[in-house]
C-alpha cells in the first residue's frame, strides 16, 4: 500500500504550552504524518465478547507492569481464591497481582513472559468448581462522592495497570504531583493497531462502565473535563459512547481520523487538544492524563464490584484462526490454550504476535501467558510473514516523512551500522515510541525498529 501523509495534518504548534488554538478544529481531528496501514479488522470486529473458561493451568507473572516486580505472597501448595492477592510490592511504582482462578498454587518459579524474558510467576492449577462459586457483589459506585485518595487506593488495591499495552501502574498515573495540575482527561478508544478489535467491542458492550471509570479518573486527578477519543473507523462505538455520555456534563466524545498511531498518547493529545507534550516529557506536563477504555472498565469493576484485575478482553485473529473474535480471558492463560479455544490451525502458524501487527511482540513459544497488557494475539501464516532482505538505504526519506514524532530514523540506522552509539542522542532516539511507521514504509526493508532498540540499549546510559 502506498503510504499517505495526513490529510488534515496539523503541523506541530510552535508552543508546547497550554491552550488550544482556536479555529483549527476540524472533525475528524488528527496529528501530522503517520501512516494508513490496512485495518485487517473484519474478522473479529463486532463479534460479541465470548468468555473463555479458565484452563487447567495458569501462569501468572509477578511483573506485568512497568516498575518494580511484585513479591509473591503465596507459595507452592497454597490454596487460592479467584481475586485473592498473590503478589504485592511496597514500591509505589508497582502493581498488585491477583489470582485469576480459584485453585492450588503448583509452584512459584521463573517462566517465560511475552516480552521474551523469564519472570518469576505463580503457577496455579485451577479448580473449576471452587472457581464457579466466587462472586462479586454489586454495590453503588459514585466516584463524585469519593475522595481522590480513596479512588487511588482502590485502583492500587485492584492491581490495575494500563491495559492499552504499556501496563503502567494506573494508581501512579492518577497521582500526579501537587505542582502539576491536570485539567483534562482523555480516554483512549482509538485502537489504532490493525487487527485489534477488543476495545471497540468494549465500547459497544460496556459503555456505562467506561463512563464510570472516566468519572473516577476525573475525580481522582481533579480534572474539569474528559474527552473520549475514538477513531472514525468505529462509527458504532462512537455512537454507543455518545449515547452513554449524553447525560454527562464534562465528558465529550471526539472522533479522530483513522490513522496509525493515533492511539499513542502524545499523538492523541495533539489531535484532541492540539497540545504538544514536551519531548522526553509526560502528558501531565501539559495538564493531561490519558487512560485506555479497558483500564476504565477495570476501575469501574473495582468500584462497583470490588473486583480486582484478573481478566481482560483479548482479540484473537489471523488467517489460521478458525474462530476469530474478542475473548474474555483470565490473566495467566497460556497462548497455547487461548489459540486452541479459538480453533487455531497450528500447522499453519508462521508467526504469533502478542499485541497488534505494528508494535506487537513476536513469540517464540506458545507457553507464554496472557498478561494485563495483552490486547490481542495475531497469528500469521508462514506465507504472510514478511522476511524481506535488508537492502541499502536509498535515502528516500519516507521514514522522515511519516514519523509521527518527526525523528530521522535513517540517520539513527547509519550511526548504528557504524557503531557510533555516542551520537544517537543527537537524533533524539529516546523520543522514539517505536510505533513502527518508519519500518512499515521503508522500501529497502530495513529493520528500523530493531536498529533503534539496539541504539537505545547501546547508547551511553548516564542520561
Amino acid at each position, binding site marked *: 500500500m502506498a503510504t499517505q501523509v495526513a490529510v488534515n495534518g496539523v503541523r506541530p504548534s510552535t508552543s508546547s504550552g497550554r491552550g488550544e488554538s482556536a479555529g483549527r478544529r476540524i472533525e475528524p481531528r488528527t496529528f501530522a504524518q503517520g501512516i494508513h496501514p490496512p485495518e485487517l479488522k473484519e474478522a473479529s470486529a463486532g463479534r460479541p465478547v465470548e468468555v473463555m473458561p479458565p484452563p487447567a493451568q495458569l501462569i501468572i507473572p509477578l511483573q506485568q507492569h512497568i516498575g518494580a516486580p511484585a513479591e509473591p505472597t503465596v507459595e507452592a501448595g497454597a490454596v487460592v481464591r479467584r481475586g485473592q492477592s498473590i503478589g504485592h510490592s511496597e514500591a509505589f511504582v508497582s502493581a498488585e497481582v491477583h489470582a485469576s482462578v480459584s485453585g492450588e498454587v503448583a509452584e512459584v518459579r521463573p517462566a517465560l513472559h511475552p516480552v521474551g524474558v523469564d519472570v518469576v510467576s505463580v503457577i496455579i492449577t485451577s479448580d473449576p468448581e471452587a472457581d464457579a462459586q466466587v462472586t462479586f457483589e454489586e454495590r453503588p459506585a459514585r466516584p463524585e462522592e469519593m475522595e481522590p485518595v480513596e479512588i487511588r487506593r482502590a485502583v492500587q488495591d485492584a492491581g490495575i495497570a494500563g491495559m492499552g499495552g504499556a501496563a503502567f501502574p494506573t494508581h501512579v498515573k492518577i497521582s500526579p504531583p501537587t505542582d502539576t495540575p491536570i485539567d483534562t482527561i482523555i480516554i483512549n478508544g482509538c485502537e489504532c493497531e490493525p487487527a485489534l478489535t477488543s476495545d471497540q467491542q468494549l465500547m459497544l458492550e460496556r459503555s456505562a462502565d467506561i463512563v464510570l471509570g472516566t468519572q473516577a479518573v476525573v475525580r481522582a486527578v481533579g480534572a474539569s473535563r474528559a474527552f473520549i477519543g475514538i477513531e472514525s473507523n468505529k462509527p458504532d462505538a462512537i455512537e454507543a459512547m455518545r449515547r452513554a455520555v449524553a447525560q454527562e456534563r464534562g465528558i465529550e466524545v471526539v472522533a479522530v481520523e483513522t490513522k496509525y498511531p493515533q492511539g499513542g498518547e502524545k499523538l492523541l493529545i495533539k489531535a484532541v487538544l492540539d497540545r504538544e507534550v*514536551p519531548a522526553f516529557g509526560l502528558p501531565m506536563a501539559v495538564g493531561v492524563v490519558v487512560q485506555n477504555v479497558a483500564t476504565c472498565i477495570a476501575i469501574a469493576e473495582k468500584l462497583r464490584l470490588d473486583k480486582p484485575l484478573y481478566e481482560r478482553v483479548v482479540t484473537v485473529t489471523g488467517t489460521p484462526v478458525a474462530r476469530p473474535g474478542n475473548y474474555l480471558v483470565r490473566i495467566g492463560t497460556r497462548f497455547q490454550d487461548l489459540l486452541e479455544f479459538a480453533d487455531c490451525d497450528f500447522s499453519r502458524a508462521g508467526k504469533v504476535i502478542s499485541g497488534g501487527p505494528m508494535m506487537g511482540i*513476536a513469540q*517464540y513459544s506458545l507457553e507464554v501467558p496472557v498478561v494485563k497488557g495483552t490486547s490481542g494475539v495475531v497469528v500469521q501464516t508462514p506465507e504472510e510473514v514478511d522476511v524481506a532482505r535488508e537492502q*541499502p538505504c536509498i535515502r528516500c526519506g519516507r521514514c522522515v516523512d511519516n514519523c509521527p514524532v518527526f525523528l*530521522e530514523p535513517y540517520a539513527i540506522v547509519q550511526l548504528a551500522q557504524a557503531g557510533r552509539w555516542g551520537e544517537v542522542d543527537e537524533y533524539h532516539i529516546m523520543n522514539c515510541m517505536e510505533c513502527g511507521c518508519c519500518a512499515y514504509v521503508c522500501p529497502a526493508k530495513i529493520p528500523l*525498529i530493531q536498529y533503534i532498540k539496539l541504539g537505545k540499549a547501546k547508547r551511553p546510559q548516564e542520561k
Partner: protein
Amino acid sequence: MTTATEQALPESQRAEALLTFAASPHIRSERTVAGTMRGVMIGLAPAVVASVYFFRHYAVLLIVTCVVASCLAEAVFQKLRRKPVTLNDWSAVVTGLLLALVLPPRLFAEKVAGGSAWAAEVTWLSVAALGAVFAIAIGKQVYGGLGSNIFNPALIGRAFLMRAFPTFLTTWTEPGTLDALSGATPLDAWKFSQQSTPLSHLLLGTTGGSLGETCAVALIIGGVFLLVLRYADWRIPAAMLATVTVLTGAAWLLGSEQAPPQFHLLAGGLLLGAFFMATDPVTTPVTKVGRWVFGLGAGALLVLIRLKAGLPEGVMYSILLMNAVTPLINRYTRPRQLGERRPYRKAERGATTVHMVLVLGLIGLFSGASLGAMHLWTRARIAENEKAELESKVQYLFPDCDISSRELTKQIVLYEATDSDGQRAGYAFEAKGMGYQGAIRLIVGVKPDLKEMVGLSVMPTNETPGLGKRIEEGEFREQFVGLDVSAKVDLVKGERQARNEISAITGATVSSRAVVRILNKQMAEMRQLLSEDR
C-alpha cells in the same frame, strides 16, 4: 532464525510449531527499491517511445548500449569490491537509461577518421558505453554503491563525456531528417542567434536535442505519473519549475531580448532533469523543507547559467551543484521533534541557520573582495596589454604602414593605416559579440572605401576546440581577404558562390555565423559613424 532460537531454548520452552521471531512491525508496505526503480522506468517510457519515434535506430542502439554497459560495469565493479551483485534492484538499468536520454542521438561521419557512417556509429556507441562505465564506477561504486553516492550517476557520466569528448556532445540532429547536422538545439538557437522555436515544436519534440529531452509532452506525462504514484517527491520538481518560471518570467518582463518563461520550461533538459534527475532520492535531501530548498536552488542556478553564463543549457550543472550541498541541506533542515521548543538545538555544534548564513556569507565576501581587489590592481595593466596586442594585430593587417589611432566614439577606437606614400591604406577596428561558448572579438581591416576587406584577425576565444575554435585559424580567416563588405555578408554551408559570402566551418555553424553576424553589425555601424565623421 527459528532453528538457532529453538536450540537455545530449554526443553520446556520449545514450541511445537516453527515460529518466526522478528522485531516489529510485522506488516510492511509493499513498496520496494526495485519497484521504485521500475516505476521510474515506466515514467520514462513515454520519453523513450518519443525518442525512438524521432531518432529511430539511433535511439534504440544508444539506449541498449548504455543500459548494457551500465549493468556490466555494475556487475564487474561489485565483484571487484567483493560485494554481492545487485543488478536485481534495477538501479543500474535506470542509470543507463537516463544517461542515454541525455546524450545526443548520434555522431556524424565527418568527425570520425575513416569517415563512414558505420564507423561514426560504432565510435559514438563506444563513447556512450565509456560514459556509462564512468557513471557507474566513479559516480556510484567508488562511493560504496547504491545509496552512498553524492552525485547523480547519470549526470556524472554526462559531465565526464562533456569534458572528454566535447565535440561529440555538442552536435545535434533534427529529428525526422536524421541526416542533417543542425548544430543547434532550441536553447542554442536562442542564446546565440536569438532565434525562438515555436512552442508546438518544443511540446511535440520536433526539435534538436538530446535523446530524451525533446518531447515535452512525453516528459510531462511521465513526470505526472511519477508524482501521482509517489515514485518521486513532488516538492523538488514543483520548486524547480516554479523557480524557473518566476525568475525567467521576471527577466522576460524586466529585460529585453529574453525568452518567455514557457520557452524556458519546455526547452532543453529542464523537464527531464526536474522530473527524473532531481528526484533521485539518494542524491537529494531527505526532509520536506530540504527538498524545497533543493528545487529552489537548482532552479535558480539553472536560470543563472542559461541567462548569464556562456552555456546555453545548465540543467546538468545546476543539479550536480545542488547534489554537492545536499548533505548540508539535510543538516540544516532537520525537522523539529514533536514537543521540542523553538529555538532548539542551540549548542548542536553550531549548526544553526544563522551560523550557516554567517559562515557562507563571510566566505563569499572574502572571495569576492579578493577577486575584486585583484581585478582593480591588474585592470590598468591588462588594458595596456590589450591595447598593445590590438595594435600589433592591426599592424599585421597593414604591414609597412604607419598606424595611428583615434577615438571615434567613447566605445570605438578607429585605427588608420597610412602607407609609405602617405596614402590612406585602410582602417581597422574591433568588433565584438557573443559566440557559442563566450565572447568573440574580431579585428577587421578594410580598405578606405569600406567596400572591401583587407583581412580579419580573431582574438583567442573559448569556442569549442576542433570546431568553433577553428575560426581563429588561417583557413577560415583567409576567406575575409578581399571580402566584399559593401553590403551584408552571408554565411553559407558549402562552397562560396559570391564575393560577399563566407563558407561556414563544418560542424561549427554557430561560431561561424557569430563571426559573420558580428562583422555585419560592426560594418553597418562603422559606415554610419564614418559618414557622420566626414
